[in-house]
């Protein structure tokens, strides 16, 4: 018996609920609904996404994962969600860790020395933090003496930054772009960043 669109929607919603933060993979849905094509599943979920988004009476939404989807609360819910002590509020990454993981994401595989050359400062502690958080991992060894450890980002990295794949990373500004244009784009960022550190 073929499933109706409505039935399919309700089953997927139920599974999204059950899997929670783990996320629901498309291949898992296919195992549960073997009669549905990947196309149908994707189309249904895209429709659901839109419905959740447009329904102001709903506090939920569906976000993309690599190979699947996850049901989450909408962003406006953050303040209400945080009032629940059970939800641990994760601290954002330090600036050092953020810069380090950005360099790794764009230049992987890359050694500690190469990272430090770009940043101009020791980056050992940042690497340790990122390893501990599972955002990066050893992906191999460089040739030559010392056989330095090479680092790369993990699937946890994608999830942490809400990226579906590495292709979602914003393109790096080309160093070749005209100086003025490049500077403006940068200054916008920079001003925002420095606004918070004007004390002393």
């Amino acid at each position, binding site marked *: 018996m073929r499933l109706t669109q409505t039935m399919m929607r309700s089953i997927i919603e139920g599974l999204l609920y059950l899997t*929670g933060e783990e996320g629901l993979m498309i291949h898992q849905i296919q195992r549960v609904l073997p009669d549905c094509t990947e196309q149908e599943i994707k189309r249904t979920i895209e429709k659901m996404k839109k419905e959740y988004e447009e329904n102001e009476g709903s506090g939920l939404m569906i976000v993309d994962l690599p190979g699947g989807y996850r049901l989450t609360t909408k962003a406006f819910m953050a303040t209400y969600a945080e009032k629940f002590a059970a939800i641990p509020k994760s601290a*954002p990454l330090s600036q050092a860790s953020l810069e380090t993981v950005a*360099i790794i*994401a764009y230049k992987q595989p890359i050694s500690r020395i190469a990272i430090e050359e770009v*940043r101009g*400062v020791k980056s050992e502690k940042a690497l340790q933090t990122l390893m501990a958080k599972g955002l990066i991992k050893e992906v191999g060894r460089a040739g030559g003496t010392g056989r330095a450890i090479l680092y790369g980002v993990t699937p946890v990295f994608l999830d942490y930054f809400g990226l579906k794949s590495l292709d979602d990373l914003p393109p790096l500004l080309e160093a070749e772009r005209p100086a003025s244009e490049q500077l403006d784009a940068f200054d916008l960022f920079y001003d925002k960043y420095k606004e918070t550190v004007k004390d002393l």
Partner: protein
Amino acid sequence: MEYKVKIDAFEGPLDLLLHLIKTLEIDIYDIPVAEITDQYLDFIHEMRQLELDVASEYLVMAATLVAMKSRMLLPKPEILDAEPDDSFEDPEETREALMQQLLDYRRYKEAAEGLRVNEQARLALFSKPPSDLSRYEKTGPAIIPGEGRATVYDMVRALQQLMLRKKLKEPLHTKIAKQVLPIGQQMYQVISELKRAGHPLRFDELFLYSDKTHIVVTFLALLELMKKNFISCRQEENFADIWVSLEEGVHEIDANDDAFNY
């Protein structure tokens, strides 16, 4: 110039330089070395007066800038000899290198800011922990998938990492007692162990301590004992455990026997 920003707000000398370039409205593609050097030094000086701990990286950059500035004040050496003076670093090249470094760092710093936006957005989304599905699980033998399996190498790797972790936790300095471990004494030790056990022992069970000297001496002792026919070693097949047992008549030997006088 007023210093409104703490040095803590910077991720190192490159970040500080970018800040100065911006506040002084300097063209990053044409950095006036003298000016930026003075400003940089002023900033560092101020920080030191405030008794802030200025990381060594900042001081290294200060030295680089000062060197660059002073070379720029010197006249270029005239090339009289055919051989160029290797010790002379062209300050223009140094300036170019610094500019490239700043541009490169700035690209990643910007990328990091982009990721910060992603991070903030992602941190605002919450999900429930996955439900316990055990009530839906049919009892039966555990199903273990074929794909994505850990291999035996993953397992050994995990153990190696664990051992390394333990190793790293150990104090760096340990007392090194220079000791002489006579082979004869170790031969007697091996025989005593076998006697006490009353049955054959696995080869590795005879290595009671893990220091190198002990392992080497024990190994030599075993070879010596085999040569003297005090013990025999048995191995069922390649790479199987080696079992060590006493030969007949060895039970009577005591520590004062000449055989152990090494």
